[in-house]
């Protein structure tokens, strides 16, 4: 790890101020599950680390009727175990409980994961399917506009994800097929149904990152049953390809995991 200066931010405003003073070379630290290993390998060298883990405004889970708002500093473990979230959106809590391992879930946060937008991260699939909002220190951005490709988001320089929110659906479920080595999603599908309207968010598979599978949404809106996807496939040409899964294999997984997610709640 290269030398860096550590700051513990006491508020969002404080964090924004420190970031401004670092001249664009600082980085926000949340759970550190991606940033710290990268720094240890000397692949990142931020001049300053601005720790957001002790910012009170970014803590807490609020469920108001069916509106769910989760502070950016909440860990995957806290989300997975939240009785409030489980009551209205059990599929979302289940997703959080499937991230990484207990150590990762204890440290990693939703704000950090969303801001990083790893193409194999789990939350982006859910937030797309749920039509979620990403709250920052300066605005609210719909998930559809926020996630913009591999590790790319709508975040501006020095902007902090302070919370995410969504309207709980009538039913939702997540299914993922793990990369055998890293245990990240090689393909994960989040299916959310409101009335007959169905949304499908897919992570881990797309060459441009998380995406909505609209053909599946149309088919499921007509018939909310796994069999509705029997003859549907995504275009393999738009899928990621790597050591663990070719684009053709990943295209197959998209159909398989989406059907399995539907089967959980159909």
């Amino acid at each position, binding site marked *: *790890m*290269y*030398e860096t200066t550590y700051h513990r931010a006491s508020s969002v405003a404080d964090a924004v101020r420190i970031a401004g003073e670092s001249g664009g070379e600082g980085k926000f630290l949340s759970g550190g599950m991606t940033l710290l290993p990268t720094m240890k*390998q*000397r692949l990142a060298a931020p001049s300053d680390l601005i720790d957001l883990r002790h910012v009170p405004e970014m803590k807490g889970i609020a469920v108001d009727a069916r509106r769910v708002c989760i502070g950016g500093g909440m860990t995957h473990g806290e989300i997975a175990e939240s009785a409030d979230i489980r009551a209205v959106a059990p599929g979302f809590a289940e997703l959080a409980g499937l991230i990484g391992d207990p150590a990762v879930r204890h440290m990693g946060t939703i704000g950090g994961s969303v801001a990083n937008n790893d193409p194999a991260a789990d939350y982006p699939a859910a937030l797309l399917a749920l039509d979620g909002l990403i709250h920052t220190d300066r605005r609210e951005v719909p998930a559809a506009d926020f996630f913009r490709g591999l590790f790319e988001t709508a975040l501006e320089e020095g902007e902090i994800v302070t919370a995410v929110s969504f309207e709980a659906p009538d039913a939702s479920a997540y299914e993922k*097929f793990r990369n*055998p*080595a*890293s245990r990240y999603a090689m393909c994960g599908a989040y299916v959310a149904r409101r009335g007959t309207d169905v949304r499908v968010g897919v992570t881990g598979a797309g060459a441009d990152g998380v995406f909505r599978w609209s053909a599946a949404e149309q088919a499921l809106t007509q018939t909310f049953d796994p069999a509705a996807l029997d003859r549907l496939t995504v275009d393999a040409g738009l899928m990621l390809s790597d*050591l*663990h*899964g*070719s684009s053709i*294999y990943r295209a*197959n*997984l998209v159909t*398989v995991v989406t059907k399995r997610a539907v089967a959980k709640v159909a």
Partner: protein
Amino acid sequence: MGVEGIGAKVLRKEDRRFITGRGRYVDDMSVPGMAYAVFVRSPHAHAKIGGVDTGAAKSMPGVVGVLTGEDLRGDGIGNLICGWMVHSKDGSPMKMGAWPALAADVVRHVGQAVAVVVARSRDEARDAAEAVAVTYEELPAVIEAAKALEPGAPQLHPEAPGNLIFDWELGDKAKTDAAFAGAAHVTKLHIVNNRLVPNPLEPRAALGQYDAADDHYTLWTTSQNPHVARLVMSAFYNVAPEHKLRVIAPDVGGGFGSKIYIYPEEIVCLWASRRTGVPVKWTSDRTEAFLTDAHGRDHVTEVELALDAEHKILGLKVDTIANLGAYMSLFSSSVPTYLYATLLSGQYDIPAIHANVRTVYTNTVPVDAYRGAGRPEATYVLERTMETAARELGVSPAELRRKNFIRSFPYQTQVIMTYDAGDFDASLNAAMAAADVAGFEARRTEAAAKGKLRGLGMSCYIEACGIAPSKAVGSLGAGVGLWESAEVRVNPVGTVEILTGSHSHGQGHETTFAQLIAERFGLPVDNVQVIHGDTDKVQFGMGTYGSRSGAVGMSAIVKALDKVEAKAKKIAAHLLEADEGDIEISGGEVRIAGTDRKLGWHEVCLAAYTGHNLPDGMEPGLKEGAFYDPQNFTFPAGCYICEVEVDPETGKTEVLQFVAADDFGRVINPMIVEGQVHGGIAQGIGQALLEGVSYDEAGQLVTASFMDYTMPRAYDLPNFVVSTTETRTPSNPLGMKGCGEAGAIGSPPAVINAITDAIGTNDLTMPATPQKVWAALKTVG
């Protein structure tokens, strides 16, 4: 047996310190004035070194010294060697390319060390290492062994034209060809044995200290065989003279073979300590482990099996290309030859065998012995072939094996080995009963109803442990003898110290070796201290690998114990005024048999040391040493049966049941043996389903971290069903065969045979990842 003697499930004495974090590993060692080494490593698979500019690095904060390959050459440090000479079939010796500990002219794999920075802190050393400017002139690289043999392939070493190290054969080609001419059926397979990274929990580390006052060197290192390290360092590498070098291998967190070899980093730490005047410590990070620990396996084989109309095997032909990587590691030549082709008869009476092995240089990490070392490759070739032959002939795989089992011992194979004992029907029967093979078809039907594909696969392995006798291995090219030594020191109060040349890095020697004393004298294991891993304490030893610590190491202890017992009896007979033939020792007491006249064990020991009343002419003391050289290899064997379920939608395989029935001969501690089998099977399932090295065309290691290299995890594995059958080997005094590698040797073919049974095609290579199994299923339609 006593409560802690042979056959008792004594809890491991060493585990308290391991599981409470009190183990003392090389990286835990610290000496005054110690500095840290960081290596500058090649980013290229193959390149000429234009120059190494250390100027900037030398002026960085905290830097004590920066040393290069030129410095190393200037000091006369010798090249790394392969210690087992193998000759090609034309009689020419193997072609060993030069391997300096720091490259000065050419780098031949990504990660090869070019320079070392020694600094006051690790971070300062890392900063300065980044400031060392190496100019490279890139050369084309070759990664696959078969491609390295093609005309026009990039050439690695001037000593080895065509990248061929040797072209070796074993067996009778003419006889085998004749056997095939009369065959009713021939089964042919193309077999790939995937390259693996050992990945012990503890990465390698070295701490070298040169003491100018005494002109003496100390090396703490993660070694399975510290005496061999000392010998090689002094005799071949000119780092330090043997009598002025102490090598200590303290607690070592797993080796699996990868810590047998003497690596560049250990040599450099010792040498750099003398050059810089400070002790120098290096600890591998995980990326360096992937890039520099000797890899395992990496064979490509064409195999043919000839059978007659009654399904009796007539002959076996094997043609293998083994990838040895960029340099010949210490025992690399022996692995694909004498540890591989000599086991190709398996458990079967095969009247004609011919094996041809070509070993090849490529721009990859050197390959050497990894848990099993050659025997997993042989077992995989033979057991995939047997299962395939059974399917082609439409007979049960168990019956085909049974029809060809060896049942008379000793049995001379066509490939050097003389099997001394075994009962292959016993292990097959035990495994089939435990696996409920009879009920499998019903389970398969049940799985099919759920949309899952069930498969059952079998593997009947035999392997060879305790490589020996020294005379025999010497005639086959080994540069060392493969005996073992031990010393048993009985203290005046009757407690016992065992000094052994074996080295424990997970095997539990501190417990099992102490059980020999418990068995012999009825002393509690807590009264026994096992001392190993320090060349200043133990006179000499060959270390631990090839499952030799039981068969060879413990036999040496037994031999020393015989001498201790004889002397103790003489003393007791003298004190009790009895005939020494009437003296017996048990339960911590020394008595005249059949009487109540006795002495405490401690009384006899004290008498030995006071010397007040010893038989005339007897030297005081009770301490005996022994060197033991085995008469033969030992031959553990067994039967493994694996049952899997494949999800046809994703190709994911779940191992539902794994049954192992092993014959290890006499078992000292069944709990530890079970643990060895569990670990071995986990590694074997890892090879079959998960693990595999991948390089890109340019020679970059793609699987250089746990993000991409899949290690087996607990949830990848079922509860193993293990048992043992027993035929004692007549080749050593305890009748024990060795159990350290069997799990990793026998299990991969069982897993793959099960998957291919489930999916209905043989066209599948390890690791059988979900993607590969899914693709294979597509070809079946």
